[in-house]
């Protein structure tokens, strides 16, 4: 065994860079190492732990956030690349109410079990419904094809998204006709 002193030093890898961005509607400044991913920054620095690390290689989508309104893998970009961007995480989307109907329908149908994939699922669903108001089940499954869930078997998630799409469409029709 070898115990070293507790002196803290930093090599080049730890020289920080200042990143300024808009996170969940608030101007945010963060000191990050150049090698920190956006995921590291959100989870460790900003304590937005609703964004999860599942594979750190862009295959599971547990880390999805919205960057300038588009779903991106927070594990696949460096924090410094998000400088100047608008980032919305599950926490911000919850507070704004933007996905409240999706969350309620997921809850009602138990379209989640352990919940680890759920923020990413919601962000994929939100993106899908923002450009395809009434997707078919096939289209929903296709849109979720990058989101890994080990617990649910996906069907309740597909059902929930389809139900929200139908409800939103019905509300729109009602609003137009009234």
């Amino acid at each position, binding site marked *: 065994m070898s115990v070293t002193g507790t002196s803290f030093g930093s090599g080049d890898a730890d020289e920080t860079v200042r990143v300024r961005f808009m996170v969940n509607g608030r101007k945010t400044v963060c000191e990050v190492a150049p090698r920190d991913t956006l995921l590291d920054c959100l989870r460790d620095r900003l304590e937005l732990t609703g964004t999860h690390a599942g594979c750190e290689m862009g295959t599971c989508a547990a880390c999805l956030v919205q960057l300038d309104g588009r779903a991106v893998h927070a594990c696949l970009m460096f924090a410094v690349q998000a400088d100047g961007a608008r980032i919305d995480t599950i926490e911000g989307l*919850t507070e704004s109410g933007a996905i409240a109907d999706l969350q309620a329908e997921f*809850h009602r149908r138990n379209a989640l*079990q*352990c919940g*680890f994939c759920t923020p990413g699922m919601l962000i994929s669903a939100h993106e899908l419904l923002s450009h395809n108001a009434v997707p078919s089940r096939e289209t929903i499954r296709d849109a979720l094809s990058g989101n890994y869930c*080990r617990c*649910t078997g996906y069907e309740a998630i597909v059902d929930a998204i389809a139900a929200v799409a139908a409800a939103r469409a019905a509300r729109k029709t009602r609003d137009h006709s009234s």
Partner: protein
Amino acid sequence: MTAPLTSLDRPNSYIGRSVPRPNAKRLLAGRGRYVTDVKLPRMLHAAFLRSPHAHAQITSIDFERARALDGVHLVATGADLAKICSPWTGTLDHFKGMISEPQLPLPLERVVWAGQAVVAVVAESRALAEDALELITVHYEELPAVVALDQAREPGTPLVNPESHSNLCFRSQLDSGGVDDAFARAAHVVEEEFSFGRHTPVTLEPRAIIADHDPEAGTLTVHHATQTPYQFQDLYSRHFGIPESRVRVIAPDIGGSFGMKLHVYHEDMAVVGLSILLRRPVKFVADRIESFVSDIHARDHRVRARMALDENGDILAMDVHDVTAIGAFSTYPRTSVVEGNQVIRLIGAPYRFKNYRAVLEVIFQHKVQTSQYRAVGHPIACAVTERMVDLAAARTGRDPFDIRAQNLIADDAYPLTSPTGYKFEALSHQACLQRLRDMMNDDALRAEQTTLRARGIHRGIGIASFVEITNPGPAFYGVGGARISSQDGATISLTPTGEVRCAISVTEQGQGTEAIVSQIVADQLGIAQEHVKVVTGDTEVTPHGGATWACRGAGIGGETALQAARVLKANILQIAALVLQEQPAALDIEDSTIVDAATRLQRLPVAEIARIVYFRSDTLPPGTQAQFTVSHHFAPQGYPFAFTNGIQGCHLEVDVETGFIKLLKHFVVEDCGRIINPMLVDEQMRGGVVQGLGAALFEECRYGDTGQLLNGSLADYLVPMAMEMPDIVIDHLETPTQDTVLGAKGCGEAGTAAASACVLNAVNDALAPFGVSINAIPITPARVLKALGRF
């Protein structure tokens, strides 16, 4: 059989209702608190240098440069941790003759699989710890690796365990007698050899642990992503010499487990040791690459099977030989032989025949350990049995439904003991078969199959009956000397405002444990579910219990909650009777109100009783001591296990040009006894089925000749995704167990148990016109094309 009406069936009962999970809203809002998310003051981070070799002698470790790196607090090797952690051995007494090498957190001299942790670094951040790993040089002398199953069994092959004479970990044999006679007089004998690939659980949250040793208080607190906090409290106490009462294990939100997070992992023991050495909290989260090479793997069986039938198509006997490779040692504390043991005991279980013989051989090799993963042994036993039944159907010219109707145990034949010694209380195979046949509309599917075949479209229909082991008693582990509890405990309180708090030893990984416990408690106490708070996952807070494994949460945990609630209710009514000057038996509780038991007239809010007890005990008769907190334990008695049963069906299409398989629809009829929450049971089924479908079509840990895992990343190891998965139709029968008041059995394994068997049968059904068959899982496009002679 449908459950007889009991007090649990009254109108508005919470039992049997699809209520959403109260704790799921947090997760939907991103407010889950997983171990991965937890930070403690002064917390450090561990990373491990892993062996690049499957088998090698460690000749030297040079870590001076790592130790000198700023921000690094400790570099530790096997010898450092061996001083404070006693070794463990993954054997159990009831598996006679099994052997396994003692294990330590990090190896002293030899590595036995590629990916084994060798050196630990603890630093200010995980990134720094990983930087330090790159400055460490381990010199190895490579040794011959035993990788493939056949190689491990060859005479003269290198020994994985140098103390032993062969690579055999365990051998077991079952023989009901009469097997040779049955085969001698059989009109038909079918034979097949099956192989089942190694796969791995791939929970979305990887393994995560934070150990926090406080030497002044003499305590160890471990935040551990596990199903079984009490088991780990016991293990950490014994292996690190800390009194049990000073060890606290907290399992908060868990990002999936499926059995994977209840085994001892070397890194977890190392992290506890590192925290003791550093006197600070130390965190380790496996990254995905580490998960693939260090989480348990499962399955990896090769089964040779024969089935004898008489001229009428009655099954007479089965004779099977299962060989399974488990890695370099047996997993602690549950061993790596339970899966094989369940394979040979579950084969043939749904059927009536009496003559059965089986041999199990469990083999060491230089790969990561295998152990219990969802539906332990069931998918293999089911696939072997059900494929053999389909082969028998083809041989005797029978329809798959008909041969099962002829041979499945009759629903009125119970109780009975299987040829392998399993005692069945009451199962419903025949009713499930009929229900499935109606649900699938088999005749229409067959007609469509014929029409489409003429157009070169090859669809297949496959069905598979299954038996599931649930509600395990001490016969499972306790009898073998494992300190793994089969009982559970709950502490339930009526609070001063008349609400209820239930701290219970079963745990939650998203299956809905807390929801069903709150339903049962609310139901039994006559209190609204939203006024019942359930607490799980902390050894400091709940009584000791088995927690969640092998399908016991609803059946054993649920009964614990039911009985605890009944005791508390009696105590509440006793005080209410004093206040109202009635007999307790004349009163009941409904909608949080004390009511007249006969007339249901409202008498007094429960909250008022609680107020009196907590704040105005002076107004109660002298000598009254209200007990509004009750601790209660329940240990299963009667049958050693509560078996469940069911049947699944699969409809799929095989593209004979590309070998790709499209799953069209999946069907399940199952009987888990009393259903507490139908929606949650359905979701357990769906999730379980999809894990079985992944195994059937995609998942396999592929190794090279030198023992390297070749596809250990989420880009290379294929898991089932939304696009490939079918919709799943589910129906239920309810045959409650009479061993408990609640009557619930488990349902967590049922989906996985039969899904791959159905797919195997359906693919072979689709390929029948080509006169070829497939006997290996996963059924990859390459395997399909190879069978068709096109690859």
